[in-house]
Each structure stands twice: as structure tokens, then as C-alpha cells.
């Protein structure tokens, strides 16, 4: 497999993983927003999940950008 196809495949996988993580993060995000508009303290577990998913998404986005730049150089 060529380097270009390999990068494209990894990018596609990262995009799919980011989408999945965003979906997972949306659950805790919804709980946090509800607590916010209800003027009550958010559930610490939801907050922890939100932070964890967000951090993981950030890492993968950075990785995605790196791979995208590499692919741009090849095409």
C-alpha cells in the first residue's frame, strides 16, 4: 500500500474515532448543560467523562491535522 493510501486510511479511521468520541461526549455534555440551566451542581462523574472525552478528541484532532498535512505534501 502506498504512503498516500496509508495516510488517507489513518485519517479516515481518526475521523471515525473522533465522531464516535464526540457522540460519547455528547451524553455527558447534555447532563452538564442540563445541570447548568437547572442551576444545580453538575454530576462530578459526568464532568469527569466530559473532560476525558474532550482531551481524547483533542489529541486525535492534533494527530489528524498532522496526518492531513503529511498527506497534503504527498498529493
Amino acid at each position, binding site marked *: 500500500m502506498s504512503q*498516500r493510501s496509508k495516510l*488517507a*486510511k489513518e485519517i479516515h479511521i481518526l475521523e471515525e474515532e473522533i465522531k464516535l468520541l464526540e457522540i460519547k461526549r455528547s451524553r455527558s455534555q447534555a447532563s452538564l448543560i442540563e445541570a447548568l440551566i437547572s442551576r444545580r451542581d453538575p454530576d462530578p462523574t459526568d464532568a469527569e467523562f466530559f473532560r476525558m472525552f474532550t482531551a481524547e478528541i483533542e489529541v486525535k484532532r492534533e494527530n489528524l491535522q498532522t496526518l*492531513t498535512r503529511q498527506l*497534503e505534501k504527498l*498529493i
Partner: protein
Amino acid sequence: MKQKLRTSSGIVILLALLGIVCLSLGMFFTVFGITYAEEAGSDTTDPSAPVLPPYDSESEPNALWLVSSNGTDFAPLNDGGTFKYLYIDVTGNGNIVVKQSNAGEHNQYVFFDGNAATEYTVKLNPDYVYEGNKLGDTYNLDDADYSDSNKGVGEKELSLDVHTTVTVQAKASSTDTLTLSKTWTIATLSNGITSSIVDGSNFAFGDSHRGTSLSAPEQGNIVVYDIAGTTNVHFAVKYEGSLATYFLDATANSDGILEVVGNPIDVSAIPSDSNYFRQQMKTLRAGDYVMTVTTSAAVSENVYYASSVDTFGFKVSSIALCDGDALANGFAYQLPENSDKVYNGTIYNTPEITLTYNGITLVQNVDYVLTTDMIDVCDNANIVITGSGNAIEGTYTIENAFSITPAANGWAAIPNIMRWQYGSFNKQVNLLTADAEFGKNELYFSIYAEGNDTAWPGLEKIYLDSEGFVNEAQESILKVLPAGNYRLSATVDGNANYDDLSGEITFQVFKGINSWDAGEIPSIKPWFKGRYDAEINAINAKAKFGTAQVVIRNAVTKEVVYATDIYGKEITNALATAGVGTYEFTATVVGTDNYDKLSTTFNFEISRKGLPVWAVVLIVAGALGLVALVFGILHQKGVLQMLTGKVIIAMRTRANVDATIAAVRANRVAREAEASIAAAKAREAEEAKQKESK
């Protein structure tokens, strides 16, 4: 007042009359070709023109012009005093006319000795032809030179103080010594060859140049061409009453027309007693001709002659070689000193004679052909002269003209034979060749084995057929001629006309290269045990040379089940009862002096009897059912679906990869486009700012 008017009128009339007189005088001089220049002191002539010696009437000859009655001996015009009062007028196209000035009229001719029948030639005195001023140039005759000569003679009205300009132009050289008579006559060929030629009276010219009558044109070009356009022609126009003959050469132009080219031949260069023209016309072949006489425009004694073309045809007929049995008058022949000929077997074997007609040497193979009716050796051979028809016709035989002696025979092509390998002689390829100068049809070949003086049986005399091949019977002998060395002898038996001739070469019949016949290379069709059929399972083994010995034996036990001897005779055959197993087939041809040995070995199988058809069908059907069962189980267990899903996933992955690459490329292009737009906008803004600042 009236007196003044009358005086004025008288002056005007006087001036008018004076003008008329002057005009009349001017016209008078102009009519007679005399041009008066301005008076002395206002000369407009070229100052670089040569200054002629002053005229001295006491110490002649300082004459500018010379005159001759015979074209050779020229004397000054004023010689003898008779011509003292002459002047030169030049008219028209340069023909010089001598006139006397005191004759009352300018156009009256002068004849120096008073004989009107004699004409004179006038030319410029070469003593006064200066370098660079020759005939064709313009000379200024100084008026002072002629002042005395004009005084006291008839032309008193001529001023002595004028310059007379004389333009002298050279005549064509051909006219210098040629004067034509009233009638042009084509020279008649009295020798009979061109007896049908007609006189050219249809292109007569005007009166001859005699007395004061008008002269004829003085030059003419003549063209003769052959209708068939095949030959050069020479011809002449003869001046009636004169022996002078005027010659022109003619050669064919690109259209096949014979035109006069080059300068006419000066008749003075030809001996007076020769008849050059007639000699040339005699060479014309029989045929129709057209002669065209073209006369160039000419001027003579103030008379202009337009050019003209006259054409007439004439025929040149062949002349008969014989008058009865005798040679016709005019013909003569001469045999060479040694007229004997060596036999050459043709009718053209004759000595070359010299045949003439009225002194004209005729050309062999053009005007006539020589043959003989005695081909063989003899002492009294005849020469037959046959006219070719385009000059002479008929046949004349010179009897007992020469002897024919025997010829020494020789080879035109030495004997040879194309070699071959044993058994492959082909009469159309392996040619026997030889060519004798004489006796070609009696030529025969013989073939001897090396060291043997007796010819090979059947090959004692080999005559080639009309196509140069040996006959079939001898071809069959040559095909089986053993390999080895031989002699080929070629012989022509001599006779009275030529000698015996023989020659020989050695040649070799090469050893043959053996091989199996293409259709019968060693082979045998295998069979199932107990099903041997002698026809179906036939044994093939046939060599190009020799007989194949075939041996079939069991490859393991070496038991021989079939064998033939070296002559192909079957000595063992147990093929029908041979058991199952592998057998070795060997075919061998023993080599000889004539061809190489040959051997081939291969194995074949005798198998057990095969399964019946129904069993084979059952086995195949069972196999197909087993395969279907396996696929059904795989489908049932979802293995096929899984494999199919993997394929689909791989295809999707590939599509995703392509889509990702496309998206990345599109994003990059979009960014570059945005950057370009931003840069453009920045430039526009910068430019707008600069405009405002200005």
C-alpha cells in the same frame, strides 16, 4: 502711313517666302537622306571621334572609300579621276550606294566603268578604320575634306561647310559574295537517287541585280526537314547560270524539324570542281521530304524586301540494285583482298565488300545487308546483296565470291554439373551444362566412375532435351548413383565444318543425410491390454534412405514382443498377447557409404481395460454433488457471507481512502483560493490607497 504699312507688309511677305524656301530646302535634303549639321564652329558631333587625314586632291589616295568590281581588288574611289566628284550616301538599313553628285538627280546610280551590267562592291578603306571605330560605327566626314571635291560640280546647292554623318553598317558576311539571280534552283541530283525532286521555281525572286533594275534579296535562310524527322539534311540553292553553290548545314531541332543552324558555308572554301551538295543529298534515304526556304527581310538599293517562306515537297525514291540479272548501272562493288571466311554456321558469314553507287559508298546494314546461301565449308560461296529499301532495293548475288574454311571448335561454356547428395538428383536442379561454338545439337555427356574408363551403365551418352534436362530414364539412374567421385565428359563429334571437341570435369556425389519421412516417423498407437489391432495400432518407421529395423521390448523385463530384421522382415510379433506395462520402441537404420545411420527410441504403455462409460458419468456426477454439498455447508455456516463481507469492507475502505484524499486535496485548493483572493483584495486596497494619495 500707308507707305509704312506697305513696307511692313512687304517685309512680312518677304520673310514668309524666305521661310518657305528654307523649309523646301530642308525637305529636299531630308528626302535624299542627307542630313546637314550645324555650321562649322557650332559642331555638335562627338569631339572624341577620329580625325581623318585632310583630303589632298593632288596626292591621292586619301580616299575614305574603296571600290572593287571583282570583290577582291579594291581601289580608292577617286582613282583615275572618274570618281573624284562622288560622295557617299547611306540609306535604309545600311546598304551602301555610290552616287555621283553632278548627275542632276541624286538617285541615279553610277557605274564606274560605264558598263551597267557590272556591279561594284564598296567598302570602307581599312587605312581609315580606326581602332574602336569599325564598320557598324558612325563616322563623321569632315566637311573640309570634301570641300574641294564638291566645288564646281553639279551639287552646288550643297554647302561645303556641313558635316555629313555617314552610318556604315556591316552586311552579313554571307551576302558579301552572294548575288542571287531571278530564279532559285534546287540543285538537281543527276545520279538518279533523287530523280523525283522538283525544281524550286515556285519560290522565285525578283529581278537580278543588273543595270538599274531592282535587286533581289541578298540573303536567305533555307530549312529542309524530313517528314519522318529521321535524318540530317544538307542542301543547297544554286544560282542560275553560275557554278557557285551556296551551302547550309541542317540538324534536327527538338521538334524533329531540320533547321539551318550556324553560318552558311563559304563556297570559296570548297574546291570549284567538287559537288559537296550533291554528295550530301545522295545520302538521303528514300522518303518524303519538305524543303522550306525562308528569306530574311533585306534591303537593297533603297528597296525593302519583306521576309518570306516558301515550302515545297519532294520525294526521294529507292533505286533498283539490279537491271535484270545484272548489277544496275552506277553500282560497283569490291571484294577485300582476302575474302575467305572461316565457317561460323550463319548466313551472315560473308566478307565485307565495298558497295558504291556513282561514287557514293553505301553503308552496310543500313543501305544493304550481306548474306550467303552457302553456309557449310566450300570453295565457291556466293554473296547475296539485299537492299534495305530505304536507299536501294532488290537483291543481287555475287557468285563464287569467297571460300569457307573449317572452323576450330571451342567451348562457349565449359562443361559443368551441379552436385547433389546421394538419392536427391533432380534433373531440373542438378543441371548438366556445356555449350560448344559449333555442334550444339550434337553435344552429349558421359559419366564415369573415378578410375574407370567405361561409362556408368546407362549414362554413356546423355543428350539433353529441348529444355536442357536429362531424360527420365537417366534421371532415375542418376538418383541412385552411389556417393563418390565421378567424371563428367562433354563431347561434340566434329564434321567437315568444325573439329571434334571434348572436355571433362570431376564431380562428387555427396553422402546423403538420412532422416525419417515426415509422414512416417517412428510411432505406434497404445492400446488396452487384449485390444491390440494390427491396423489401428500399426507400426510406423520409414527412413529417407534404407529400411528401418524395429524392435519392441518390455522396458522392465527387456522381453522382446516385436522385431524385424534389417530388411524389414518381421521375425517376432507377440503384441496381441503383450501384458500391461511400459514398452520400449526402437527403430534403427544401418548407415552405409551412401547415407548416414538413423535411430529413434521411445516408450509407450499397454494399459488395463478402462472403466465403462456409466462408471465415469457416475464418478463425475458424484464429484459435482460433493462440491455442491461443501458450498451448501459453507453457506449454512455463514462462511461465505463472512468472506463476502470482508470483500465489501475492503471495497469500502478503498472508497474511504479515495474520498479522504479527495477531501484533503479539495481543502488545500480551497485554502489556496482563499489566499489568492485575499492577496488580490489586498493589492486592490493598496492600489486604491495609492490612487487616493495621488
